[in-house]
């Protein structure tokens, strides 16, 4: 069965394994990330999600496996062999961090200028040219400033442009980190818990932002997230990890009802409680929004449907209450 993310994917993770001494953090993980899609990597805490990110972005060297990145112009990169900064510079993979790594002692706009370092360095003649007063740097700097302004508007931080980054609220800092990552023109954007600590309104704005990025900027987005409203709300594709291994891989609709996923999160095996569990999941995750692009997904008949009927009657009421 061919999924659209198997068809010319942006990123192919194949048999990724990461061992720390005797501990297997990731075991034989394989999945694909499609271009112009939002893929979510979810799983209980400690499942190894950030480790996957660190492998993809070059901060860890995987023990085994292959990470192939395919640009739409045909260029390919083997990320497992690349240094962390090259992964960004050459393969155009950008990331944000679980614990927010901003340059707090620099202003918001300075943060975005640092992100455009490589472009500016070239334009400055690797510093020597600009030092001697050669011309093109000024223009490049102005363009960089424009790009920074563009992204600041996109993340709604344009008013705080000259404030120190450390002064921003938590949600604003997360948005700034995303804007900073986008300033590096990434083809693959890896977001580590972008919605952590955001209130529902901010989460909604984040969703909008991510959808814009996906649609307008030819970028694939891979995100780690625990907030199910975000995950279910915008993902086109979900991969579920538990103890470093993949336990589910499919559309939100499929993953939502996957018993392996339910078990991993809730650990419930008793038949009688499965109904409650289903209600909970349905309530938390609103029905897939029609705004997502119609994906030629086939129904997933393989998994045995739960014996109980989905409690449709109660669900909408619960959903309304949640909203």
């Amino acid at each position: 069965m061919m999924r659209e993310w198997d068809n010319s994917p942006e990123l192919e993770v194949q048999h990724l394994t990461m061992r720390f001494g005797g501990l297997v953090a990731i075991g034989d993980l394989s999945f694909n990330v499609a271009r112009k899609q939002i893929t979510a990597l979810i799983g209980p805490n400690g499942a190894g999600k950030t480790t996957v990110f660190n492998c993809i972005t070059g901060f860890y060297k995987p023990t085994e496996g292959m990470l192939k990145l395919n640009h739409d112009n045909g260029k390919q990169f083997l990320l497992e062999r690349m240094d962390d900064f090259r992964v960004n510079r050459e393969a155009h993979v950008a990331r944000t961090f679980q614990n927010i790594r901003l340059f707090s002692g620099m202003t918001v706009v300075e943060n975005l200028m640092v992100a455009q370092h490589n472009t500016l360095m070239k334009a400055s003649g690797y510093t020597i040219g600009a030092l001697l007063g050669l011309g093109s740097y000024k223009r490049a700097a102005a363009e960089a400033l424009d790009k920074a302004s563009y992204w600041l508007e996109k993340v709604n931080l344009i008013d705080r442009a000259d404030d120190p980054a450390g002064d921003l609220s938590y949600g604003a800092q997360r948005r700034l980190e995303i804007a900073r990552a986008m300033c590096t023109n990434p083809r693959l954007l890896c977001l580590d818990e972008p919605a952590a600590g955001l209130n529902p309104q901010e989460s909604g704005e984040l969703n909008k932002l991510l959808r814009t990025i996906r649609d307008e900027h030819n970028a694939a987005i891979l995100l780690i997230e625990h907030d199910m409203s975000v995950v279910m709300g915008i993902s086109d594709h979900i991969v579920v990890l538990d103890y470093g291994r993949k336990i589910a891989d499919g559309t939100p609709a499929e993953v939502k009802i996957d018993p392996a996923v339910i078990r991993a999160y809730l650990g419930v095996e008793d038949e009688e409680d499965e109904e409650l569990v289903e209600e909970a999941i349905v309530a938390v995750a609103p029905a897939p929004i029609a705004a997502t692009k119609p994906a030629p997904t086939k129904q997933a008949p393989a998994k045995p449907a739960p014996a109980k009927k989905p409690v449709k009657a109660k669900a909408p009421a619960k959903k309304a209450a949640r909203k």
Partner: protein
Amino acid sequence: MYFLQQLINGLTLGSIYGLIAIGYTMVYGIIGMINFAHGDVFMVGSITTFIVLLMFALTGGSGPFAIALALALVIAISMAVAATFNWTIERVAYRPLRGSFRLAPLISSIGMSIVLQEFVRIAQEGRSKPIQPIIKGKFVLMTKSVGTQDFAVTLSYMQIGIILSTLVLMTVFTLIIQRTALGRAQRACEQDTKMAALLGINVDRTISITFILGAILAAFAGFMFFMYYNVTDFHVGFAAGIKAFTAAVLGGIGSIPGAMLGGMLIGLIEVMWSAYFSVEYKDVAAFTILVLVLIFMPQGLLGKPEVEKI
């Protein structure tokens, strides 16, 4: 034969370095910073030894019991003085900066090292001249001839004393760390200070005691140093400190047996280099080892590689 002699000399010197290195490694393990003044605490120990010995005016004629008693007193006084110094340094210059920026404790530490050196220099008018008391006739060299009649490999009482007492001290310390509550508290603080505090360990006191223990060892090393070389001055802490730190890193920072092992190695390397290559560059050899170890093997021989959480 020459080699054997150098071996003995190297081990002796290495013991001294090892004792100082333990202090470095314990402090680094528990608060994550290099106590730049630690080498100078060693110097304080040796200076105090010198002063008190001078006061006791021991001569070769005194009976062995009197000598032993006097030496025990000297050791005790040196340890007390050095421990007070190190404790005070921690309280005054390091503790208030614990939550502060990364550079602040380091600068403070460098400043303290300068203060200590200058304090001793001014107080003792050592200026730039080494103080050279010759305490003669206290220990008779025992020659233990091994090999041809032309050469003799000597193993002085002093050397035996140093190596043995170092081994004893190290065993005692390792036992303290492994078996006692204090040792447990210290290991807990090394791992995670906040958690240790939450579990009821008095972190401040544990740290203070660590500094005191480190100083005691350094003072003993200072005592041994003075008895062995019969010379000391206010500047010995500098080179000894760097070499001892090299030893601590070589052995693996945070590991006490590692510090001793590193110390022995550094001592051997230094002595062998002086013996077989050139004396002038022996310090260069030691410093180069430091550079090489930190570049290629930062976790040392017995340490564990650190993986940074991103």
